[in-house]
């Protein structure tokens, strides 16, 4: 297989968990809540899906459990920041450490246990296409679900009434109140939906991609997802592209090593993070102007309106 196809295919499969979490975080931040606990939602999603997958032998039931676990953690974040006025940064990080501890504790018995994971579904005809076939159509069904997810979330956010309300909660919260809607409900709902998607991202990592559970196996992908949302300027489509780009950056190291390129391994390890910095630098100005107004208040430490 050519290096090009290898890296692109690895980028799509390795980037999918980041994409789920990033699209979820987009929904959350569109409503004005940043969730640094996304990494935690991915962790509980990974363990939840894995444990339930092991117990039931059905990976789809596992995904539901992972989504529920990720959503539950995010719901707690939503409650703390929206209803109790907790700092969004402090709450998100606390919940991440809570998730790390809980998953290490309850996950110990699942380390090394075999799970019935997702198999590869080669899409008829499409998977035979040159380049596009192996890159896009020789993967697992949870990854294909991601192809449907992005247009769906985009449609809901920008073409439906509920999407308008969510975005208004993030832009002009007080006008929601004027019209008799609950800003709190919008925000808690959006954060929870984001956690559900992050949990599904964790589920993809554990039961479709790596087929393993190990403590702290998310290994920073949740934070990459949060950074991605910012440089994708809160657009689900750009999150999709960014997640795959990240996946490619991660896949580049092994792909070059397997072909014996004379490149220092530690340099390759840094590629995804150098990429983040580069993109943030280039897009910095544009990002600021595109930020949901209520989110800016979070960074400026002002109390949210509404």
């Amino acid at each position: 297989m050519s290096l090009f196809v290898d890296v692109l295919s690895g980028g799509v499969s390795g980037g999918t968990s980041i994409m789920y979490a990033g699209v979820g975080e987009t929904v959350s931040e569109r409503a004005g809540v940043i969730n640094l606990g996304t990494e935690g939602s991915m962790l509980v999603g990974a363990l939840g899906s894995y444990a339930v997958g092991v117990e039931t032998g059905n990976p789809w039931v596992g995904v539901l459990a992972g989504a529920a676990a990720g959503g539950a953690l995010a719901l707690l974040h939503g409650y703390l920041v929206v209803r109790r006025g907790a700092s969004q940064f402090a709450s998100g990080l606390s919940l991440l450490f809570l998730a790390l501890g809980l998953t290490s504790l309850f996950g110990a018995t699942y380390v090394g246990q075999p799970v019935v994971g997702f198999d590869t579904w080669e899409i008829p005809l499409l998977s035979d296409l040159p380049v596009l076939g192996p890159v896009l159509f020789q993967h697992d069904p949870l990854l294909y679900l991601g192809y449907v997810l992005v247009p769906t979330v985009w449609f809901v956010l920008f073409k439906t009434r509920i999407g308008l309300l969510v975005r208004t909660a993030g832009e002009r919260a007080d006008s929601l109140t004027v019209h008799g809607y609950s800003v709190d409900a919008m925000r808690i709902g959006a954060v929870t939906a984001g956690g559900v998607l992050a949990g599904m991202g964790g589920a993809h990592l554990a039961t479709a991609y790596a087929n393993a559970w190990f403590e702290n196996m998310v290994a920073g992908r949740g934070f990459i997802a949060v950074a991605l949302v910012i440089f994708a300027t809160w657009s689900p489509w750009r999150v999709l592209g960014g997640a795959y780009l990240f996946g490619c950056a991660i896949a580049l190291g092994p792909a070059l090593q397997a072909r014996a390129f004379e490149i220092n391994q530690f340099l390759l390890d840094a590629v995804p993070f150098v990429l983040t910095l580069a993109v943030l630098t280039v897009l910095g100005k544009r990002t600021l102007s595109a930020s949901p107004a209520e989110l800016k208040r979070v960074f400026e430490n002002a109390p949210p309106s509404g």
Partner: protein
Amino acid sequence: MSVRQSTPRWAVGVGLACAALVVAGCSSATESSGSGSDEPGKDTPAVGFITVGPKDDFGYNQAVYEGSQAVEDAFPDLEVMLAENVPEDDSAATTMQRMIDDGAKLIFATSYGHLDAALKVAEENPDVVVVQQGNTITTDIPENSGTYFGTVYEPMYLAGIAAGAATESDKLGYVYAFPIPQTIANINAFERGAQSVNPDVETITVSTSSWCDPGKQQAAAESLLAEGVDVLTQHQDCTSTVIQAAEKAGAMTVGYHADASELAPEGWLTGAVWDWGPVYTDIVQTVVDGDFVGSGYNDNFRVGYKTGTNPFVLAPYGPGVSEETIAAIEDAQAWLGTEEGSPFAGPVLDQDGEVEIEEGVIPTYAENDAMDFFVQGVVGNLAQ
């Protein structure tokens, strides 16, 4: 004045340790050495084990636990204590001291990073033997301490024979964490074992820069499989991701740490797995008999097929290993046990074709423990 202080080596050891630490440990050592039996650890009623991780990790720590069970079976009158998840810092010393206060006069500190705490506890308790698993004492070795480990590259050489005979693409893949000497020796031994039955075979290496990151392991496995590799092996702490990636792709697997053949019923060949029982039992026997001081264990002990009780053994064979290959592996194992047998019996060439080990030279275990080059046939760069 104790008998022991008349031994010059001991005096030098205490002197060096005190000079190095510049703390009060010295006085406690001289005080307590005046009491009790002459030989450290003799007739101990209890043995303590500390592990850095959980006892059910399907890997390193589980192997320690199973070894401690073997000790319990072999010495029914002995109390066996186990402390899991002991960090590699000073709290390890506290845990060990508690075991000693509860009667243990022999402690196994089983993680690489437990060495400093182990030496500290050994110094403060001259009547107790503290042995450490896997690290090396680089100063003078106190007479109540030592390190021990196996030579994992020997079974990896044998597993390489299985891989070299089974491959059809002549490409083997190796997923590893960091280019440390132990890993380098494993990779080299694997390739040389494979070459012994298949001169054209090469081993392609991919590093993940992590002992356990299943996501990176998957990316590494995918890249190797995309390059046409049809046997995958690894040096990682968590091993199931790479094994399942190989099985899904219809490729074969050589395992590490544990028998994971249930994860790869089709492609499992064999692997290097742990069996600490014989070594632990022998150390306990030596200490209980009062023979520890001056024994092989009162040293940086490295055990391999030459010395008989290598804690790394070959996992059961999978369906892809032929009778002929099994015979070749058994011959090679017998050869490794002889004076002139070694995975690195010269001549050994590096990747550039330069001679690293001359013809006729058999490197020692200690020399192999310091290996810093890839042999000819290994594909990949050593990050410098």
